[in-house]
């Protein structure tokens, strides 16, 4: 890895003003976009200008209290990736505060609505990640620097010495010459009155003390391990009642009939309410949900409200309900779906999105063609879907585990029909997201139920079965590829078509690295749709997690057909590309003992991918895996070892990156080995973990993660999604080496791997 850059991060995109105030006897510091109105017009800042009655309200990013406590306000939810801790570290780096004094609070999204730009900085500012975003990170660091300088000047004034003679370290201000010291908290209030003519420069990266060095535990952990951490499902309010719900098992179906009288006399039952998608009120003002409202619609169903959850659930189980399944019932089985996918793909009539040369004019020595499939997958976050809301004449208040606060807020406004000033959204810790808690269909359902039972808080809990059936799944895909190989085995042409049945994201497909390097002169990559009724959405590296499997398996097949070692094949194809890719391949191969003989029934496979910018040099996070597997003659698969290399440029927190890679690798393993929903009569057949096997500790292979392929390029690319990509194809390619069986669909557990 290269030496750290000597440059500070650049604050470039927007000019801003820093303003201060005295809060609770201490210093509060906030950002004011100097040109918020102009940005609003350009659509760069979400929300609407209000102006009135807000001047005295504060949108603090940072508060220093007299007792030295540092409150860092975080606009993003905490989903377990440590983004809020990282955000605080970015500030602490410049503030020079003692880390032990740092606490985190979630920002109130209403402030952003009332005063656009208060918290909206960087890519998807209210989404649960991106703490090292190249816009947001210098902004937050500037806050720390500004506060530090103001504290220094306040101390300088008190002591009557030049501020330049004062140093700040570990929340203490020191005048070296006289040996005098002051704690930050002692001058915090004075610092609020300090005007600084020019905002301080950020430190050169080489001077960083925390970033790139410290690896503190996530700030919420002491509460997580003693049970006091509050996830959405843990909210407890006076007079709270509970709702259990059931929605059409076939997505898009409608509640035909139900009989509330059958359960209203059961103990504790308060009400039975209908969840009616058509009853949504609509926002009274222009809205700006991060991802739009499509996919956030309620699903037709019914909810029982009772004093306790168990009472609500028992009554729901006893409630007679009939469904009109609607058109979704057409999809009677997976077999039918696969036949239709094949019909679409065999026409080769998809929309070409990536095109170079002429694939039809190629005279190939050999042609390789194969079709791949990946199924619908459920996020299976450990915290089942839930939310708590109180709807009354005063307005609507919610407590909810969301991955995107802005999206959740506007969905709540839209479903309730209330003016945004009357809606308050309280983010909580999130018990796993992986993309499931983004679009806000759960928020909308909670509001729809609470609205019908006003005046008391209603906690709505989806059972695990309901959570599973009412997913927004990773879309299934089918992909067909065709390559024409030259006599030397290398591809002259690459043709592909990917057929989606839901939310289609092409990252890792139409911009797959092999299509953009120029190493393959003739390329045509198309997409098509087999529309279905099943709800789909983001899922840890949306669609990339499928494309990495189809693309990296096909390239492996080309290598085998061309008679070239699969590692060598990839290195040849990537020869003129960003060298970090080759470095990742070579290091993983070396560490894994690539090429060393293995007994029969064992094999190694390799795969490489990048999220979210595979088609650009020195961008995104490149990830590479060599898997070592063993398959018994009877077909039992054991993954012995995963050797993993990556390049995300640089890193600011090694342990946090390692944790995301470890988790992503396990996620990728589970996806490849276990995950896949079955469609029966238009509905999802799986409903709980007894039918949906999940990787457990005993299934864990040896996992080796190497940091030595980091290029040191000046970027801190996101690392949560990328690692899920190469795991499946590396294992599949290893299984081929072990058994001669080529796996073209996931999950692998469902397939006959026996050999003789």
């Amino acid at each position, binding site marked *: 890895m290269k030496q750290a850059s000597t440059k500070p991060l650049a604050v470039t995109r927007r000019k801003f003003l820093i303003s201060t105030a005295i809060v609770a006897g201490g210093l509060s510091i906030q950002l004011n976009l100097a040109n918020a109105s102009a940005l609003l017009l350009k659509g760069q800042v979400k929300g609407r200008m209000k102006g009135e009655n807000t001047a005295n309200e504060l949108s603090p990013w940072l508060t220093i209290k007299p007792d030295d406590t540092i409150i860092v306000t975080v606009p993003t939810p905490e989903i377990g990736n440590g983004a809020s801790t990282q955000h605080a570290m970015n500030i602490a780096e410049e503030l020079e505060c003692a880390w032990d004094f740092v606490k985190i609070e979630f920002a109130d999204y209403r402030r952003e609505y009332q005063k656009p730009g208060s918290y909206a900085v960087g890519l998807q500012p209210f989404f649960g990640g991106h703490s090292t975003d190249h816009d947001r990170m210098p902004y937050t660091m500037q806050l720390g620097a500004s506060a530090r300088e103001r504290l220094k000047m306040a101390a300088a004034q008190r002591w009557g010495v030049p501020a330049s003679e004062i140093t700040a370290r570990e929340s203490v201000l020191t005048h070296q010459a006289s040996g005098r010291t002051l704690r930050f908290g002692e001058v915090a209030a004075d610092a609020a009155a300090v005007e600084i003519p020019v905002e301080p420069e950020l430190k050169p990266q080489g001077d960083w003390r925390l970033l790139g060095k410290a690896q503190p535990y996530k700030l919420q952990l002491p509460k997580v391990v003693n*049970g006091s951490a509050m996830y959405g499902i843990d909210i407890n309010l006076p007079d709270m009642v509970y709702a259990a719900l059931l929605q059409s098992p076939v997505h898009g179906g409608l509640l035909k009939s139900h009989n509330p009288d059958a359960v209203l006399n059961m103990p504790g039952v308060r009400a039975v309410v209908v969840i009616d998608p058509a009853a949504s009120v609509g926002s009274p003002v222009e809205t700006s949900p991060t991802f739009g409202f499509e996919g956030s619609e309620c699903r037709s169903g019914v909810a029982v409200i009772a004093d306790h959850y168990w009472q609500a659930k028992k009554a729901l189980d006893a409630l007679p309900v009939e469904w009109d399944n609607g058109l979704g019932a057409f999809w009677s089985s997976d077999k039918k779906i696969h036949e239709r996918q094949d019909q679409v793909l065999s026409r080769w009539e998809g929309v070409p999105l990536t095109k170079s040369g002429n694939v039809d004019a190629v005279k190939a020595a050999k042609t390789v063609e194969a079709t791949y499939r990946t199924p619908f997958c459920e996020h299976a976050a450990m915290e089942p879907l839930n939310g708590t809301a109180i709807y009354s004449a005063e307005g609507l208040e919610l407590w909810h585990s969301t991955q995107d606060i802005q999206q959740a807020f506007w969905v709540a406004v839209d479903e309730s029909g209330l003016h945004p000033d009357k809606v308050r959204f309280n983010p909580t810790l999130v018990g796993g997201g992986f993309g499931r808690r983004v679009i806000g269909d759960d928020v909308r359902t909670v509001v729809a139920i609470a609205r019908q039972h006003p005046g008391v808080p209603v906690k709505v809990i989806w059972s695990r079965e309901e959570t599973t059936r009412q997913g927004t799944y990773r879309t299934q895909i089918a992909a067909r590829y065709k390559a024409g190989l030259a006599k030397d085995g290398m591809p002259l042409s690459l043709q592909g078509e990917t057929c989606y049945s839901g939310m289609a994201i092409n990252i890792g497909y139409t911009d797959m690295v092999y299509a953009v390097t120029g190493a393959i002169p003739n390329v045509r990559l198309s997409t098509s749709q087999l529309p279905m009724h099943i709800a789909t959405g983001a899922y840890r590296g949306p669609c990339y997690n499928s494309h990495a499997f189809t693309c990296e398996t096909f390239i492996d097949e080309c290598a085998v057909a061309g008679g070239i070692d699969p590692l060598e094949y990839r290195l040849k194809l990537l020869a003129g590309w960003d060298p970090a890719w080759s470095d990742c391949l070579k290091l993983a191969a070396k560490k894994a003992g690539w090429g060393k003989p293995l007994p029969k029934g064992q094999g190694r496979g390799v795969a490489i991918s990048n999220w979210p910018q595979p088609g650009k040099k020195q961008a995104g996070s490149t990830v590479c895996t060599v898997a070592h597997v063993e398959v018994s003659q009877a077909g039992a698969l054991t993954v012995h070892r995963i050797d993993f290399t990556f390049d995300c440029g640089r890193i600011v927190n090694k342990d946090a990156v390692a944790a995301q890679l470890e988790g992503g690798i396990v*996620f990728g393993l589970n996806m490849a080995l276990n995950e896949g929903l079955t469609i029966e009569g238009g509905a999802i057949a799986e409903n709980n973990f007894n039918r949906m096997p999940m990787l457990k500790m005993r299934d864990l292979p040896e996992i080796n993660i190497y940091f030595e392929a980091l290029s040191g390029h000046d970027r801190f690319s996101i690392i949560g999604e990328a690692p899920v990509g190469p795991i499946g194809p590396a294992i599949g390619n290893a299984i081929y080496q072990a058994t001669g069986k080529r796996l073209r669909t996931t999950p692998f557990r469902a397939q006959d791997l026996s050999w003789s």
Partner: protein
Amino acid sequence: MTTIKFKVNGQEQSLDIDPSTPLLWTLRDHLGMTGTKFGCGIAQCGACTVHINGHATRSCVIPVQAVEGAEVVTIEGLSDSGDHILQKLWVELNVPQCGYCQSGVLMAAADLLKRNPNPKDEEIDAQISNICRCGTYSRIRAAIRRAAEDLKS
């Protein structure tokens, strides 16, 4: 409704409650102790693990009538101030990601260590069958190993 008496974290509890209510929901809804988590409701994931009379048990399938007279310990009572060796190591080694499953994992791991202060990897794997979707398994194992080492000295 039936009156059920049992102890939670050393405190006597007497509840008028539907006796079929799972212990999980009794703790969460009736006693306001939300550290014990709901994950699946069918004893598959282990998020709801508590100790009943000293044994790690998945509380989502235990009706409260079955704990009449029993001693229940939840994550809130695993230690006086969050200083059980596993709790300390869980923080130090940054084990949790989202953390939702971890109170159950901690209760299962504490039970394992109590019975087997120096477990082999295979014994850890056999005992800790909890589901962690974030994939923190390697850190869970490492923390249990470290605890065993620390307990030796």
